[in-house]
């Protein structure tokens, strides 16, 4: 096995082009488990830790551009108020040791439906900057995943950064697991309110082959909020509306039975999480002064 170091984005792309068999390694929290247990034996590893720009974030035109190797701990501590949904989800990842190393780039490339960063990125309409020596492109997160552990990332491409719009309204994320820390989610749900556009966005995690948006629930809620003029009045939200929103969201789940939970349980739990995240975000919206 060879170990390749890269000091810049260009060096990393050149190394990947020269050695297509090289597997990138960032925080190692997914990849090293596979190596330790002999599940993967790549011919080469390409270390991304030395690429300084990967570890930076910056504000650009109403967005936060987060380098692929910014670890979860720094997302929580440094940009939590700009991307609250992503920060809440980041707080649920693993343990302090895992959050100190695990990165957005790794979470996206692994493309697990249980990746906790993915639902909040979906509802925030984030885009992923990817590139290879052939050129660079941006892919909306909504178009990034093609199946379980599969994405549109080409074999020679690397993830450079994630562009997340600064939150324009309340965002929430909730996750069901067997305990409070160190759990792969049984299912999860992210919700964002976009008051300026008068839209809402929901996304299910870990209850389908990929993370799943919830358009029926969104359309229902947007219509209710408009008909009842709730965006303007900021009045209380009917319990029945929140419950119906949850049911419609749950209907979008495509869960399986596995060791972590049954399909029926997951569908039910998604509905509960969707209802709760709606109640939390709406309460926050009502409190916020214009």
């Amino acid at each position, binding site marked *: 096995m060879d170990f390749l*170091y890269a000091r810049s984005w260009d060096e990393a792309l050149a190394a990947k082009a020269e050695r297509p068999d090289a597997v990138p390694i960032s925080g190692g929290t997914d990849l090293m488990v596979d190596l*330790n247990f002999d599940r993967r034996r790549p011919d080469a590893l390409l270390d991304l830790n030395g690429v300084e720009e990967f570890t930076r974030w910056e504000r650009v035109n109403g967005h936060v551009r987060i380098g692929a190797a910014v670890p979860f701990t720094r997302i929580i501590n440094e940009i939590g108020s700009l991307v609250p949904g992503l920060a809440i989800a980041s707080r649920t990842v693993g343990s302090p040791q*895992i959050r*100190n190393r695990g990165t957005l780039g790794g979470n996206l490339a692994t493309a697990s439906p249980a990746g906790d960063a993915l639902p909040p990125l979906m509802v925030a309409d984030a885009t992923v900057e990817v590139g290879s020596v052939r050129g660079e492109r941006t892919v909306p997160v909504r178009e990034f995943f093609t199946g379980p552990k599969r994405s549109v990332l080409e074999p020679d491409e690397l993830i450079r950064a994630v562009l997340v719009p600064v939150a324009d309204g309340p965002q929430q994320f909730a996750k069901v697991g067997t305990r409070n820390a160190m759990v792969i989610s049984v299912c999860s749900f992210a919700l964002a309110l976009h008051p300026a556009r008068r839209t809402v966005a929901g996304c299910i995690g870990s209850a389908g082959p990929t993370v799943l948006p919830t358009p029926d629930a969104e359309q229902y809620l947007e219509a209710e909020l408009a008909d009842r003029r709730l965006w303007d009045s900021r009045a209380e939200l009917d319990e029945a509306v929140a419950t119906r929103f949850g049911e419609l969201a749950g209907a979008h789940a495509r869960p399986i039975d596995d060791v972590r939970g049954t399909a029926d349980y997951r569908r039910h739990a998604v509905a509960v999480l969707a209802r709760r995240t709606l109640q939390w975000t709406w309460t926050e919206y009502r409190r916020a002064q214009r």
Partner: protein
Amino acid sequence: MRLTFDVNGVGQQADDVWPGESLLYVLRERMGLPGTKNACEQGECGSCSVYLDGTLVCACLVAAPQAQGRAVRTVEGLATDSAGGLDHIQQAFVETGAVQCGFCTPGLIMATDDLLANTPTPSDAEIREALAGNLCRCTGYEKILDAVRLAASRRTEVTP
């Protein structure tokens, strides 16, 4: 490959490192530092916790070559000021009975060191959160919480 890095303040070199091996393996098997424990090799138990450039990480999840040119601090490096003695966190673990078989202890001491460096007077919720990545099969955790509280109280006494 050859790996040169700093371990507990001393420049070190390891030869014939296989690029896919973990920092944990290098520390234990090549550096002769068995304080950092190997239990799960999948980031679940925290017994391999070390500082990598000052950040608490699971050594089992760091590829050894990723430590090239970097500084690693292990549990062996904590008590260096006290001439063979224990530092105040280690002392607190001993006094409160937080050590039974002792396998989890080095990792918990590293995690406690990291917690108290950033949060000198942690709440119980903060202690639990900071130690969430460290498993103990013996103590039931109560004595470990006592140890952290004791270490925190002594730390605030010495650093006003």
